């Protein structure tokens, strides 16, 4: 019989713990209010009001996170199961920002496609709560909780357009593969717990030393978790689900999923591998280096032959996961900061590109062929110019944010000794220029003779989002010094005590 430890938990402690997870609380409250509002208001008002509530919740989460980051209030909470450190706050701000963009794009999209608005926004909020918990996780239990919350919300969102077969296919595939990946992660966690006797990451970090590398439980745990994580960031050879799921899901969901899930999964990898199992570096680095190399090659080569913009962006996402893994492998202050920087920039360029594609959809369906972009620069100059910005940024052209992101990742990789991987990354990014420029070719081609398949509907919302994302993608280039500093601050909690 184990004597229960007497825990004194004061009211002051309770309030301070609650403040540490302030951004998560803000989004959760917005979610609950949105659900109730959706039940009580008359039908016509529900959608717009829920959208406004979602935006208010996300903006307040952003404000709380920014306030706490500036004042340096972060620290562990709830018996170290959660942490409100700079790393968590960085990601919470990132997710809140993506959330605002996603909610605006979805609101316009569901109206054009004749779908029900309120529930999609609630699901997006639920996914964001999961992502924030993942970034703030201080224990394997919290990691899994966040992972499941975000995954389940996204499974439903993928099948949101439920009368359409591709949407159903997308949801079913994502559910099965995602469930599989979660099982891998969970089994890995169980083995790590078996080897160390704790789920708290900071305890794992002290108990797992480089001497314990021979422990088969730990090695198997690392392997299983690595496979699950690779599924979640859609890194090759675990990327098979990505194109099908991205193509079938409603466009705003794809846009949200492609950037936010990736960022959340990388936050999880950094927390668990770079922090919790930092001393087992040589073990998981072998696994991740192989995955990174495979992702860069497979993603870039497969993106070339795609006819659908969604599938092309899906494979481009696989390739970018490979680049970001270089930073994860490099580790250390420079590597982690480079990952944070790249994720921040990637979010805006990729989301912007998807938001442009989402303006092409009408009641009849999504326009996601290259041909649908023909003459975009003349039909709508703003969208045309900004689509070019996003493509140049994804391809890594200076002075866009994508260029600086790659520079930071690759320099961190080289100084950590991953030269062969960086050489491969540079070579494959040259390949990627081809398919990004193919988009530019269609955007700037003369207006087609035949009537365009999709005329523009009421797309003011998405255009605003595209503008915002475009401003970020351009402005973050010159501001990269500042953002890198924020990234370095965010990386610090993962490196303390080492």
């Amino acid at each position, binding site marked *: 019989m184990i004597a*229960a430890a*007497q*825990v004194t*938990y004061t*009211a002051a402690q*309770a309030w301070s713990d609650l403040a540490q997870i302030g951004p998560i609380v803000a989004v959760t409250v917005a979610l*609950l209010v949105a*659900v*109730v509002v*959706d*039940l009580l208001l008359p039908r016509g008002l529900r959608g717009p009001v829920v959208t406004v509530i979602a935006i208010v919740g996300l903006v307040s989460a952003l404000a709380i996170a920014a306030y706490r980051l500036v004042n340096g209030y972060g620290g562990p909470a709830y018996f170290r199961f959660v942490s409100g450190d700079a790393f968590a706050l960085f990601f919470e701000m990132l997710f809140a920002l993506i959330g605002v963009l996603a909610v605006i794009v979805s609101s316009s999209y569901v109206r054009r496609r004749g779908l029900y608005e309120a529930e999609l926004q609630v699901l997006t909020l639920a996914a964001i709560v999961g992502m924030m918990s993942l970034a703030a996780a201080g224990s394997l239990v919290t990691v899994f909780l966040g992972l499941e919350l975000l995954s389940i919300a996204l499974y439903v969102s993928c099948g949101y357009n439920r009368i359409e077969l591709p949407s159903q296919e997308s949801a079913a595939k994502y559910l099965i593969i995602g469930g599989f990946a979660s099982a891998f992660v969970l089994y890995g966690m169980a083995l790590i717990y078996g080897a160390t006797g704790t789920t708290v990451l900071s305890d794992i970090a002290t108990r797992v030393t480089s001497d314990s590398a021979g422990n088969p439980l730990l090695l198997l745990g690392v392997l299983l978790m690595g496979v699950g994580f690779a599924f979640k960031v859609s890194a090759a050879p675990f990327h098979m689900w990505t194109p099908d799921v991205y193509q079938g899901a409603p466009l705003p969901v794809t846009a949200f999923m492609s950037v936010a899930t990736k960022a959340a999964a990388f936050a999880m990898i950094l927390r668990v591998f770079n922090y919790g199992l930092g001393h087992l570096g040589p073990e998981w680095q072998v696994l991740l280096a192989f995955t990174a190399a495979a992702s860069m090659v497979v993603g870039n080569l497969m993106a070339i032959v795609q006819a659908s913009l969604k599938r092309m962006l899906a494979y481009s996402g696989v390739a970018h996961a490979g680049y970001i893994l270089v930073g994860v492998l490099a580790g250390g202050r420079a590597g982690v900061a480079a990952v944070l920087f790249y994720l921040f920039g990637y979010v805006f360029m990729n989301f912007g590109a998807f938001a442009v594609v989402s303006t092409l959809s009408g009641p009849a369906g999504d326009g996601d062929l290259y041909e649908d972009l023909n003459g975009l620069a003349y039909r709508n100059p703003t969208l045309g110019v900004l689509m070019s910005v996003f493509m140049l940024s994804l391809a890594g052209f200076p002075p866009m944010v994508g260029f600086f992101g790659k520079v930071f990742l690759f320099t961190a990789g080289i100084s950590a000794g991953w030269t062969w991987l960086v050489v491969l990354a540079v070579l494959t990014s040259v390949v990627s220029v081809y398919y990004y420029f193919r988009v530019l070719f269609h955007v700037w081609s003369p207006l087609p003779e035949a009537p365009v398949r999709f005329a523009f509907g009421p797309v003011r919302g998405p255009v605003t989002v595209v503008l915002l994302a475009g401003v970020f993608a351009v402005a973050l280039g010159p501001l990269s010094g500042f953002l890198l500093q924020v990234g370095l601050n965010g990386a610090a909690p993962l490196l303390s005590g080492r």
Partner: protein
Amino acid sequence: MLSDYAPLAIYAVIVLAVVGLMLTLSFVLAPVKRYRSKLLPYESGIVPTDPARKRMSVRFYLTAMLFIIFDVEAVFFYPWAVILHQLRWYGVIEMFVFMLILLVALAHIWRKGGLEWE
């Protein structure tokens, strides 16, 4: 150590041998007579009325799913009740917050017609 498991291994071998022997004996010795009423799906003399491959309503799946969700949530009450005297008022408030969230979910299901049978 590994040798501690030797009785278990011996036991497993014996079980497999006995089961294998019994199956083989009944396969070899038993008389086999195949005729129509013996090949019917339900052998105890009841005559089948219609084919087994017919469509059934799976309407209950929704109710079952909702039940399981709330059932699992309710399990959290047990550990909470055990250590309530340690958690004091904080625990009470926390549990009411939890129940409030469950209540919102229940209201959502109810209002959206998740509990209607027809």
